[in-house]
C-alpha cells in the first residue's frame, strides 16, 4: 500500500527584500518589496508503507519544506499530496496521530527535564492509556539502548544519546510513517552508525515507513533502498541506491606499486595516468570505456607487482557530481 503520494507539489514563499543601509530601510518602510522564492517546484513521488526512502539535496533544495508540507504544517501553493490517505494540511491533527517526525535541528525533548518526562508528556498528547505507555517506553528504551539515559536531564546527554532519545520519542505512538529531517546532523561517526542501526531495526520490527532527509550520503547508503535527489526544488534523480551506484560509480582509481623501477613513460591504453613515481603510479579509468580485466592484466604484465588498490568514488562524490551536472544544465 502507498503511504505517501505527492503529485506536482509546488511551494512559493514571499520574502521581504530590503536594501542595505538607512536609505534601504526607509524605502522598505515606504514601499516594501517582495521576492518570490520557489522552494518546491513540481515534485512528484510515492513512498510505499514500510519503505525506507532517502531524500537528499544541498541546503535550500526544498527538503525541509516538503517534509513540513507532509506533516501538515505548511500549505503547498499548488499540487496534491496524501499521507496515509490524509491530506496533511487539511487533516493535520488526525494525521499527527499516525505519523512521527524528528527535526534534527529542532529538539522536541524538554531540555531541562529527563527524557522520561517528555516521553510521558508525549504519551498523554497522543492519548495513550497509561499501561500501554509504560510498556511502550520500556520497549523503546531497550530497542534504542537508552534505559540508562531516561532519568538524566536531556541537557546532560551527548548529542548522539539525545538523538536516539528524540527518535525513540517520535515512535512512542507507533506511527506508520516516520519523517526524519536531518536526524544525523552533527553526530560523530560512531553515533551516526548506532542511530542508523536502530532506525533500520525499528523499521524492520514495526514496518514503519521512513522518509529520511540528510546531508550525509552515508545515511542514505546505509539505510535506504531507494533515493530521491532534489536540487533547487526539483527531483534530479529518483531510483534505487544500487542503480545509482551502478550508473555513476563507473570511474575507478588505481594505486599500483612495483618491486622494480618503472619506466618514465609508464602507461596503459585507455587509462589516464595521474601520477608516476619511481616504483608506483596512480591511474584512473572509466569502466564504460575500458573494462577492468585488460587494465589489471596490463598492470600485471608491466612488471613484478608489490601492491594494487582499486577504489571507487564515494556516494557523496557521485551525488555532488549529479548536483554539478544539474547546475550546468540549468545554468
Amino acid at each position, binding site marked *: 500500500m502507498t503511504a505517501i503520494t505527492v503529485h506536482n507539489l509546488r511551494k512559493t514563499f514571499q520574502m521581504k527584500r530590503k536594501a542595505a543601509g538607512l536609505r534601504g530601510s526607509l524605502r522598505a518602510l515606504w514601499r516594501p518589496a517582495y521576492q518570490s522564492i520557489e*522552494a518546491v517546484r513540481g515534485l512528484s513521488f510515492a513512498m510505499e508503507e514500510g519503505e525506507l526512502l532517502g531524500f537528499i539535496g544541498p541546503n535550500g533544495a526544498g527538503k525541509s519544506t516538503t517534509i513540513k508540507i507532509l506533516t501538515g504544517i505548511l500549505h503547498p501553493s499548488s499540487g496534491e499530496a496524501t499521507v496515509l490517505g490524509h491530506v496533511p494540511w487539511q487533516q493535520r491533527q488526525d494525521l499527527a496521530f499516525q505519523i512521527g517526525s524528528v527535526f534534527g535541528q529542532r529538539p522536541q525533548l524538554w531540555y531541562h527535564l529527563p527524557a522520561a518526562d517528555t516521553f510521558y508528556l508525549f504519551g498523554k*498528547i497522543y492519548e495513550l492509556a497509561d499501561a500501554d505507555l509504560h510498556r511502550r517506553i520500556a520497549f523503546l528504551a531497550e530497542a534504542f539502548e537508552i534505559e540508562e539515559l531516561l532519568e538524566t536531564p536531556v541537557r546532560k546527554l551527548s548529542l548522539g544519546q539525545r538523538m536516539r532519545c528524540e527518535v525513540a520519542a517520535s515512535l512512542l505512538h507507533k506511527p506508520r510513517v516516520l519523517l526524519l529531517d536531518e536526524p544525523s546532523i552533527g553526530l560523530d561517526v560512531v553515533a551516526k552508525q548506532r542511530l542508523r542501526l536502530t532506525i533500520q531495526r525499528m523499521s524492520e520490527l514495526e514496518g514503519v515507513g521512513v522518509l529520511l532527509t540528510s546531508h550525509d550520503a552515508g545515511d542514505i547508503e546505509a539505510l535506504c533502498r531507494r533515493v530521491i535527489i532534489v536540487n533547487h526544488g526539483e527531483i534530479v534523480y529518483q531510483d534505487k541506491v544500487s542503480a545509482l551506484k551502478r550508473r555513476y560509480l563507473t570511474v575507478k582509481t588505481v594505486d599500483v606499486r612495483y618491486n622494480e623501477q618503472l619506466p618514465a613513460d609508464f602507461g596503459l591504453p585507455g587509462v589516464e595516468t595521474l601520477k608516476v613515481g619511481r616504483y608506483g603510479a596512480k591511474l584512473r579509468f572509466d569502466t564504460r570505456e575500458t573494462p577492468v580485466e585488460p587494465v589489471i592484466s596490463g598492470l600485471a604484465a608491466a612488471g613484478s607487482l608489490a601492491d594494487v588498490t582499486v577504489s571507487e568514488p564515494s556516494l557523496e562524490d557521485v551525488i555532488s557530481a549529479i548536483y554539478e551536472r544539474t547546475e550546468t544544465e540549468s545554468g
Partner: protein
Amino acid sequence: MASREVQFISDEGCVRSPSATAVAGKYWAIFRTQLLNSLAYPVDLLGRSLLIVLFMWIFMNLWRVTYGATGARSIAGLTLADTMWYLMMAEAVMLSKHELSETMSEQVKDGSVAYLLNKPYNFILYHFATGLGDSVLAFGGNLIIGSAVVWLMVGPPPGIAGWVFAFLAVVLAWLLDFCFSALIGLSAFVVEETAAFRWIYQKFLLLLGGVLIPLDFFPGWLQTISLNLPFAWIIYGPARLFVDPSLVRLGQVFLQQGIWLAVVGGAVWVFYRRAAVRLAINGG
C-alpha cells in the same frame, strides 16, 4: 529481549484511546511538565520571588508616609494594612504572569512556531497550559515570601474567604492576561516586532490595572474609566477581592472577567485562525 519485542509487534495495546478525559489529560500533562521544568531550577525560582520583598518595602515606606500625612485611619475604605495586603496580591499576580507574548512573537519570527504544530493538540491551549504551569509556581513563591514580609510589617492577612476568592479570580485573571499576551504575540505575524505593544500593555496594567495604586484612590472619573477597561480585572479585581471578600464583589469580578474573556478570547480565536492560515501559506 526478543520476547518483549515479539509481544510488541503483535500490535497489542499502544493504540489511541480517545475520550474527553484523554483530551483534558493532554493539557494537564503539558501543565505538569512545565511545572516540573520550572522546578528544575529552584534557586532561580526563589530569586525571582525575592523581588517582591523590595517592592513591598518601598510601598510600605510610601504608604506609611501618605497615611501619616492625611491622619486618616483609612482612605477610600482601605486601612494601611488593607492597602499593603492589596499591593502584595497585586504584585504577586503581576510578577508571576507568564511572558507569553514574547515567547510567541519570537516563535513566529524565527519560524519555530511550525515545530509546535506537528503534534495533535491545539496550539493556543498548549501555550495556555505551559503558561499556567509557569505562573503557578512563581505565584506560589511570590505569595509565600510576599505574605511573610507584609505580615511582619502590618500584621496578619485577611481571612480564609479572601484567599479562596482571590485564587478563583486569579485563575480567570491569568486567562484574561493570557488572551492579551496571545493577541500581542500573534500580532507578530503582521507587524514582526511586538515590543512596543508589550510595553504599552504593561503600562496599562501598572497604571489602570491597579498594580501601583488601588483604583479606589483614583479620582472618580479616572476610577470609572479604569473599571470599565479590562486591565482592572486582571490585577485590581483579584487583589481587592482578597482584602474585601464579599460575595457581591466576587460576582462583580467574575462578571467583568467573563465579559472581557468573551471579547478578548474571541478576538484571539479569530486572529489565531487567520494567523494559522497565514503561517501555513507563508511558512515558518
